Protein backbone atom coordinates (compact mmCIF):
# COMPACT_ATOMS: atom_id res chain seq x y z
CA UNK A 1 0.00 0.00 0.00
CA UNK A 2 2.76 2.46 -0.71
CA UNK A 3 2.83 5.17 -3.32
CA UNK A 4 6.17 6.70 -3.94
CA UNK A 5 5.98 9.02 -6.95
CA UNK A 6 9.43 9.31 -8.48
CA UNK A 7 10.58 12.75 -9.49
CA UNK A 8 13.06 12.85 -12.38
CA UNK A 9 15.27 15.84 -11.71
CA UNK A 10 15.81 18.50 -14.36
CA UNK A 11 19.23 20.08 -14.08
CA UNK A 12 19.06 23.83 -13.67
CA UNK A 13 22.37 24.24 -15.49
CA UNK A 14 22.30 21.70 -18.31
CA UNK A 15 18.59 21.23 -19.10
CA UNK A 16 19.00 22.80 -22.52
CA UNK A 17 21.34 20.03 -23.64
CA UNK A 18 18.41 17.64 -23.60
CA UNK A 19 17.37 18.16 -27.20
CA UNK A 20 17.93 20.23 -30.34
CA UNK A 21 14.89 22.39 -29.71
CA UNK A 22 16.21 23.59 -26.37
CA UNK A 23 19.75 24.14 -27.69
CA UNK A 24 18.38 26.33 -30.46
CA UNK A 25 16.35 28.27 -27.95
CA UNK A 26 19.43 28.94 -25.81
CA UNK A 27 21.35 30.15 -28.84
CA UNK A 28 18.51 32.60 -29.45
CA UNK A 29 18.66 33.77 -25.87
CA UNK A 30 22.44 34.07 -25.98
CA UNK A 31 22.10 36.72 -28.66
CA UNK A 32 21.22 39.04 -25.78
CA UNK A 33 24.91 39.06 -24.92
CA UNK A 34 25.63 40.32 -28.39
CA UNK A 35 22.94 42.94 -27.92
CA UNK A 36 24.65 44.02 -24.71
CA UNK A 37 28.00 44.24 -26.47
CA UNK A 38 26.55 46.39 -29.22
CA UNK A 39 24.85 48.62 -26.68
CA UNK A 40 28.22 49.16 -25.09
CA UNK A 41 29.80 49.91 -28.47
CA UNK A 42 27.01 52.41 -29.19
CA UNK A 43 27.56 54.18 -25.88
CA UNK A 44 31.30 54.36 -26.48
CA UNK A 45 30.62 55.66 -29.98
CA UNK A 46 28.19 58.30 -28.78
CA UNK A 47 30.66 59.44 -26.18
CA UNK A 48 33.35 59.65 -28.84
CA UNK A 49 31.04 61.58 -31.15
CA UNK A 50 30.18 64.01 -28.41
CA UNK A 51 33.82 64.52 -27.56
CA UNK A 52 35.76 65.50 -30.68
CA UNK A 53 36.23 64.58 -34.34
CA UNK A 54 39.59 62.97 -33.43
CA UNK A 55 37.99 60.73 -30.83
CA UNK A 56 35.32 59.81 -33.35
CA UNK A 57 37.96 58.91 -35.96
CA UNK A 58 39.77 56.77 -33.36
CA UNK A 59 36.49 55.05 -32.51
CA UNK A 60 35.79 54.28 -36.17
CA UNK A 61 39.32 53.04 -36.77
CA UNK A 62 39.11 50.75 -33.73
CA UNK A 63 35.77 49.19 -34.52
CA UNK A 64 36.34 48.76 -38.25
CA UNK A 65 39.63 46.95 -37.68
CA UNK A 66 39.96 43.41 -39.08
CA UNK A 67 39.30 41.64 -35.77
CA UNK A 68 36.16 43.63 -35.16
CA UNK A 69 34.93 43.13 -38.73
CA UNK A 70 35.09 39.37 -38.23
CA UNK A 71 33.18 39.80 -34.99
CA UNK A 72 30.56 41.98 -36.71
CA UNK A 73 30.14 39.41 -39.49
CA UNK A 74 29.72 36.52 -37.08
CA UNK A 75 27.31 38.55 -34.98
CA UNK A 76 25.23 39.37 -38.02
CA UNK A 77 24.98 35.69 -38.90
CA UNK A 78 24.01 34.90 -35.32
CA UNK A 79 21.40 37.64 -35.25
CA UNK A 80 19.89 36.52 -38.53
CA UNK A 81 19.65 32.81 -37.89
CA UNK A 82 18.99 32.69 -34.18
CA UNK A 83 17.11 35.84 -33.59
CA UNK A 84 15.54 37.57 -36.56
CA UNK A 85 14.31 34.54 -38.50
CA UNK A 86 13.04 32.91 -35.30
CA UNK A 87 11.26 36.01 -34.04
CA UNK A 88 9.70 36.70 -37.43
CA UNK A 89 8.47 33.11 -37.52
CA UNK A 90 6.97 33.53 -34.06
CA UNK A 91 5.49 36.98 -34.72
CA UNK A 92 2.11 35.73 -36.07
CA UNK A 93 1.54 33.97 -32.75
CA UNK A 94 1.61 37.20 -30.82
CA UNK A 95 -0.40 39.19 -33.32
CA UNK A 96 -3.13 37.16 -34.97
CA UNK A 97 -5.06 39.12 -37.57
CA UNK A 98 -8.55 38.23 -38.67
CA UNK A 99 -10.27 39.10 -41.90
CA UNK A 100 -14.00 38.45 -41.60
CA UNK A 101 -14.53 34.76 -40.83
CA UNK A 102 -11.00 33.59 -41.38
CA UNK A 103 -7.74 34.15 -39.62
CA UNK A 104 -5.08 35.64 -41.85
CA UNK A 105 -2.58 32.89 -42.71
CA UNK A 106 0.67 33.25 -40.80
CA UNK A 107 2.75 33.72 -43.98
CA UNK A 108 1.27 37.18 -44.58
CA UNK A 109 2.41 38.44 -41.21
CA UNK A 110 5.85 36.88 -41.57
CA UNK A 111 6.28 38.29 -45.07
CA UNK A 112 5.07 41.65 -43.81
CA UNK A 113 7.84 41.63 -41.23
CA UNK A 114 10.50 40.86 -43.82
CA UNK A 115 9.22 43.57 -46.12
CA UNK A 116 9.23 46.13 -43.31
CA UNK A 117 12.73 45.03 -42.34
CA UNK A 118 14.07 45.42 -45.85
CA UNK A 119 12.43 48.83 -46.22
CA UNK A 120 13.88 50.06 -42.92
CA UNK A 121 17.31 48.67 -43.80
CA UNK A 122 17.28 50.41 -47.17
CA UNK A 123 16.14 53.63 -45.51
CA UNK A 124 19.02 53.51 -43.05
CA UNK A 125 21.51 52.74 -45.81
CA UNK A 126 20.19 55.75 -47.73
CA UNK A 127 20.24 58.06 -44.72
CA UNK A 128 23.78 57.10 -43.83
CA UNK A 129 24.96 57.52 -47.38
CA UNK A 130 25.74 53.88 -48.03
CA UNK A 131 23.46 53.99 -51.07
Amino acid at each position, binding site marked *: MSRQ*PYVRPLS*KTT*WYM*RNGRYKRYMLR*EVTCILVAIYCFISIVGLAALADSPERWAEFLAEFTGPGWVVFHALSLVFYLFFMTFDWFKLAPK*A*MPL*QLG*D*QKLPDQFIVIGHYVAWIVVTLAIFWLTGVI
Partner: protein
Amino acid sequence: MELEVMRYDPEKDDAPWFQSYSVPCEEDWAILDAINYVKENIDTTLSYRWSCHMMVCGSCGMMVNGEPSLTCKTFIRSLPDKVRIEPLENFPIERDLVVVLDDVMQKLHKVQPYIIRKDDPPENEEYQQSRGALAKFKQYTMCINCMCCYSACPQYGLSNDFIGPAALALAHRYNLDSRDQGKSQRLDILADHDGVWDCSFVGACSEVCPKDVDPAAAIQQMKIDGAMEFWKQKLGFPGGKS
Protein backbone atom coordinates in the same frame (compact mmCIF):
# COMPACT_ATOMS: atom_id res chain seq x y z
CA MET B 1 10.45 -3.68 -33.47
CA GLU B 2 12.38 -3.33 -30.24
CA LEU B 3 10.67 -1.43 -27.43
CA GLU B 4 12.61 -0.14 -24.45
CA VAL B 5 10.04 0.72 -21.87
CA MET B 6 10.60 2.49 -18.59
CA ARG B 7 9.29 0.52 -15.62
CA TYR B 8 8.76 1.58 -12.06
CA ASP B 9 6.88 -0.13 -9.26
CA PRO B 10 7.37 1.85 -6.05
CA GLU B 11 6.67 -1.27 -4.00
CA LYS B 12 9.62 -3.05 -5.58
CA ASP B 13 11.92 -0.46 -7.16
CA ASP B 14 13.94 2.42 -5.74
CA ALA B 15 14.32 3.97 -9.14
CA PRO B 16 12.95 3.47 -12.66
CA TRP B 17 14.64 1.02 -15.00
CA PHE B 18 14.25 -0.09 -18.62
CA GLN B 19 12.74 -3.31 -19.86
CA SER B 20 13.11 -4.50 -23.44
CA TYR B 21 10.38 -6.14 -25.48
CA SER B 22 10.49 -7.51 -29.00
CA VAL B 23 7.22 -6.82 -30.80
CA PRO B 24 6.09 -8.12 -34.21
CA CYS B 25 4.36 -5.08 -35.73
CA GLU B 26 1.89 -4.48 -38.54
CA GLU B 27 2.90 -1.60 -40.79
CA ASP B 28 -0.16 0.55 -40.10
CA TRP B 29 0.20 0.36 -36.34
CA ALA B 30 0.55 3.26 -34.00
CA ILE B 31 3.09 2.84 -31.21
CA LEU B 32 0.14 2.41 -28.82
CA ASP B 33 -0.78 -0.77 -30.69
CA ALA B 34 2.70 -2.11 -30.03
CA ILE B 35 2.40 -1.29 -26.33
CA ASN B 36 -1.03 -2.97 -26.22
CA TYR B 37 0.52 -6.02 -27.84
CA VAL B 38 3.09 -6.16 -25.06
CA LYS B 39 0.41 -5.97 -22.39
CA GLU B 40 -1.83 -8.57 -23.97
CA ASN B 41 0.76 -11.10 -25.06
CA ILE B 42 4.06 -10.58 -23.27
CA ASP B 43 3.79 -8.74 -19.97
CA THR B 44 0.43 -7.98 -18.36
CA THR B 45 2.08 -6.09 -15.51
CA LEU B 46 2.83 -3.04 -17.68
CA SER B 47 0.68 -0.09 -16.55
CA TYR B 48 -0.26 2.85 -18.76
CA ARG B 49 -3.24 4.99 -19.65
CA TRP B 50 -5.15 4.81 -22.91
CA SER B 51 -8.73 4.81 -24.11
CA CYS B 52 -10.10 6.19 -27.35
CA HIS B 53 -7.28 5.44 -29.79
CA MET B 54 -8.49 8.30 -31.97
CA MET B 55 -6.64 11.37 -30.69
CA VAL B 56 -9.47 12.89 -28.66
CA CYS B 57 -9.29 11.64 -25.10
CA GLY B 58 -5.72 12.67 -24.34
CA SER B 59 -4.94 9.66 -22.13
CA CYS B 60 -2.02 8.14 -23.98
CA GLY B 61 0.67 10.82 -23.85
CA MET B 62 4.18 9.39 -23.36
CA MET B 63 7.79 10.15 -24.31
CA VAL B 64 8.63 8.35 -27.54
CA ASN B 65 12.38 8.52 -28.23
CA GLY B 66 12.59 11.59 -26.04
CA GLU B 67 9.70 13.46 -27.67
CA PRO B 68 6.39 14.04 -25.87
CA SER B 69 3.87 12.29 -28.10
CA LEU B 70 0.33 11.03 -28.28
CA THR B 71 1.03 7.32 -28.74
CA CYS B 72 -2.18 6.62 -30.67
CA LYS B 73 -1.12 9.25 -33.17
CA THR B 74 2.54 8.27 -33.47
CA PHE B 75 2.84 5.71 -36.20
CA ILE B 76 5.62 3.14 -36.33
CA ARG B 77 6.10 3.89 -40.01
CA SER B 78 7.68 7.16 -38.90
CA LEU B 79 9.82 5.60 -36.15
CA PRO B 80 13.13 3.70 -36.20
CA ASP B 81 13.26 -0.01 -35.30
CA LYS B 82 14.31 0.70 -31.75
CA VAL B 83 11.96 2.88 -29.72
CA ARG B 84 12.33 4.14 -26.17
CA ILE B 85 9.08 4.71 -24.27
CA GLU B 86 9.04 6.73 -21.08
CA PRO B 87 6.39 8.44 -19.01
CA LEU B 88 5.80 12.12 -19.75
CA GLU B 89 8.68 14.31 -18.60
CA ASN B 90 8.34 16.93 -15.88
CA PHE B 91 5.77 14.84 -14.03
CA PRO B 92 6.44 12.51 -11.11
CA ILE B 93 6.12 8.86 -12.06
CA GLU B 94 3.31 7.01 -10.28
CA ARG B 95 3.90 3.59 -11.83
CA ASP B 96 5.53 2.49 -15.10
CA LEU B 97 4.21 4.86 -17.76
CA VAL B 98 1.60 6.50 -15.53
CA VAL B 99 2.42 9.98 -14.23
CA VAL B 100 0.94 12.05 -11.42
CA LEU B 101 -1.30 14.71 -12.94
CA ASP B 102 -2.60 16.36 -9.76
CA ASP B 103 -0.70 19.57 -10.37
CA VAL B 104 -2.05 20.25 -13.86
CA MET B 105 -5.60 19.33 -12.81
CA GLN B 106 -5.34 21.93 -10.11
CA LYS B 107 -3.97 24.45 -12.62
CA LEU B 108 -6.92 23.86 -14.98
CA HIS B 109 -9.18 24.69 -12.09
CA LYS B 110 -7.21 27.80 -11.14
CA VAL B 111 -7.68 29.70 -14.40
CA GLN B 112 -11.50 29.77 -14.10
CA PRO B 113 -12.22 28.02 -17.39
CA TYR B 114 -15.94 28.70 -17.69
CA ILE B 115 -18.19 31.42 -19.02
CA ILE B 116 -18.24 34.30 -16.56
CA ARG B 117 -21.09 36.74 -17.05
CA LYS B 118 -21.98 40.08 -15.59
CA ASP B 119 -25.25 40.24 -17.56
CA ASP B 120 -27.84 37.53 -17.94
CA PRO B 121 -27.79 35.34 -21.01
CA PRO B 122 -30.60 35.74 -23.59
CA GLU B 123 -33.72 34.01 -22.49
CA ASN B 124 -34.69 30.74 -24.19
CA GLU B 125 -32.32 31.22 -27.04
CA GLU B 126 -28.68 31.13 -27.88
CA TYR B 127 -26.21 33.99 -27.92
CA GLN B 128 -25.67 35.23 -31.42
CA GLN B 129 -22.09 34.50 -32.33
CA SER B 130 -20.82 35.14 -35.82
CA ARG B 131 -18.58 32.66 -37.61
CA GLY B 132 -15.78 35.17 -37.32
CA ALA B 133 -16.24 35.39 -33.56
CA LEU B 134 -16.16 31.60 -33.33
CA ALA B 135 -13.06 31.44 -35.49
CA LYS B 136 -11.26 33.72 -33.05
CA PHE B 137 -11.17 31.21 -30.22
CA LYS B 138 -11.89 27.92 -31.96
CA GLN B 139 -8.35 26.58 -32.12
CA TYR B 140 -7.96 27.04 -28.36
CA THR B 141 -10.98 24.83 -27.73
CA MET B 142 -9.18 21.89 -29.32
CA CYS B 143 -6.99 21.03 -26.35
CA ILE B 144 -7.46 17.41 -25.29
CA ASN B 145 -5.50 17.89 -22.05
CA CYS B 146 -2.88 15.35 -23.06
CA MET B 147 -0.23 17.39 -21.19
CA CYS B 148 2.45 16.85 -23.83
CA CYS B 149 2.98 20.61 -23.72
CA TYR B 150 3.88 20.49 -20.02
CA SER B 151 6.40 17.81 -20.84
CA ALA B 152 7.96 19.96 -23.50
CA CYS B 153 8.05 23.14 -21.45
CA PRO B 154 11.40 23.68 -19.73
CA GLN B 155 9.97 26.46 -17.56
CA TYR B 156 7.46 24.01 -16.10
CA GLY B 157 10.25 21.48 -15.72
CA LEU B 158 12.36 23.94 -13.80
CA SER B 159 9.53 25.27 -11.67
CA ASN B 160 6.25 23.47 -11.10
CA ASP B 161 4.64 26.71 -9.98
CA PHE B 162 4.25 27.89 -13.57
CA ILE B 163 0.60 27.61 -14.54
CA GLY B 164 1.69 26.14 -17.83
CA PRO B 165 0.70 26.01 -21.50
CA ALA B 166 -2.57 24.02 -21.55
CA ALA B 167 -4.15 25.83 -18.62
CA LEU B 168 -3.15 29.21 -20.03
CA ALA B 169 -4.43 28.34 -23.49
CA LEU B 170 -7.72 27.32 -21.92
CA ALA B 171 -7.95 30.65 -20.12
CA HIS B 172 -7.29 32.44 -23.38
CA ARG B 173 -10.05 30.38 -25.04
CA TYR B 174 -12.53 31.89 -22.64
CA ASN B 175 -11.03 35.36 -22.81
CA LEU B 176 -11.58 35.33 -26.56
CA ASP B 177 -15.09 33.86 -26.47
CA SER B 178 -17.54 36.64 -27.33
CA ARG B 179 -20.00 35.26 -24.78
CA ASP B 180 -17.59 35.62 -21.87
CA GLN B 181 -17.25 38.70 -19.68
CA GLY B 182 -14.62 37.46 -17.27
CA LYS B 183 -11.38 38.52 -18.97
CA SER B 184 -10.20 41.02 -16.40
CA GLN B 185 -11.06 38.62 -13.60
CA ARG B 186 -8.98 35.91 -15.21
CA LEU B 187 -6.12 38.23 -16.04
CA ASP B 188 -5.70 38.93 -12.34
CA ILE B 189 -4.55 35.34 -12.00
CA LEU B 190 -2.84 34.97 -15.34
CA ALA B 191 -0.82 38.16 -15.27
CA ASP B 192 0.43 37.37 -11.81
CA HIS B 193 3.51 35.44 -10.63
CA ASP B 194 3.57 31.95 -12.08
CA GLY B 195 1.25 33.11 -14.83
CA VAL B 196 2.05 34.22 -18.36
CA TRP B 197 5.22 36.06 -17.35
CA ASP B 198 6.98 32.82 -16.43
CA CYS B 199 6.89 31.96 -20.12
CA SER B 200 10.02 32.87 -22.07
CA PHE B 201 8.57 31.82 -25.42
CA VAL B 202 10.63 28.69 -25.94
CA GLY B 203 7.73 27.58 -28.13
CA ALA B 204 8.30 23.87 -27.52
CA CYS B 205 4.73 23.45 -26.30
CA SER B 206 3.25 24.46 -29.63
CA GLU B 207 5.69 22.29 -31.52
CA VAL B 208 4.67 19.10 -29.70
CA CYS B 209 0.94 19.80 -29.45
CA PRO B 210 -0.87 16.99 -31.32
CA LYS B 211 -3.96 19.14 -31.90
CA ASP B 212 -2.25 22.35 -33.10
CA VAL B 213 -3.72 24.36 -30.27
CA ASP B 214 -0.66 26.64 -30.24
CA PRO B 215 -0.53 27.46 -26.51
CA ALA B 216 2.58 29.57 -27.06
CA ALA B 217 0.51 31.95 -29.16
CA ALA B 218 -2.18 32.09 -26.48
CA ILE B 219 0.37 33.00 -23.83
CA GLN B 220 2.06 35.76 -25.84
CA GLN B 221 -1.33 37.25 -26.68
CA MET B 222 -2.22 37.21 -23.00
CA LYS B 223 1.00 39.00 -22.15
CA ILE B 224 -0.19 41.80 -24.40
CA ASP B 225 -3.68 41.57 -22.89
CA GLY B 226 -2.24 41.63 -19.40
CA ALA B 227 -0.10 44.68 -20.14
CA MET B 228 -3.01 46.53 -21.74
CA GLU B 229 -5.24 45.66 -18.81
CA PHE B 230 -2.63 46.95 -16.38
CA TRP B 231 -2.41 50.30 -18.17
CA LYS B 232 -6.19 50.54 -18.53
CA GLN B 233 -6.57 50.16 -14.80
CA LYS B 234 -3.65 52.43 -13.99
CA LEU B 235 -4.89 55.21 -16.26
CA GLY B 236 -8.51 54.72 -15.26
CA PHE B 237 -9.87 54.02 -18.73
CA PRO B 238 -13.34 52.51 -19.06
CA GLY B 239 -13.10 48.80 -19.73
CA GLY B 240 -10.72 48.37 -16.86
CA LYS B 241 -11.91 46.38 -13.88
CA SER B 242 -15.08 47.80 -12.40
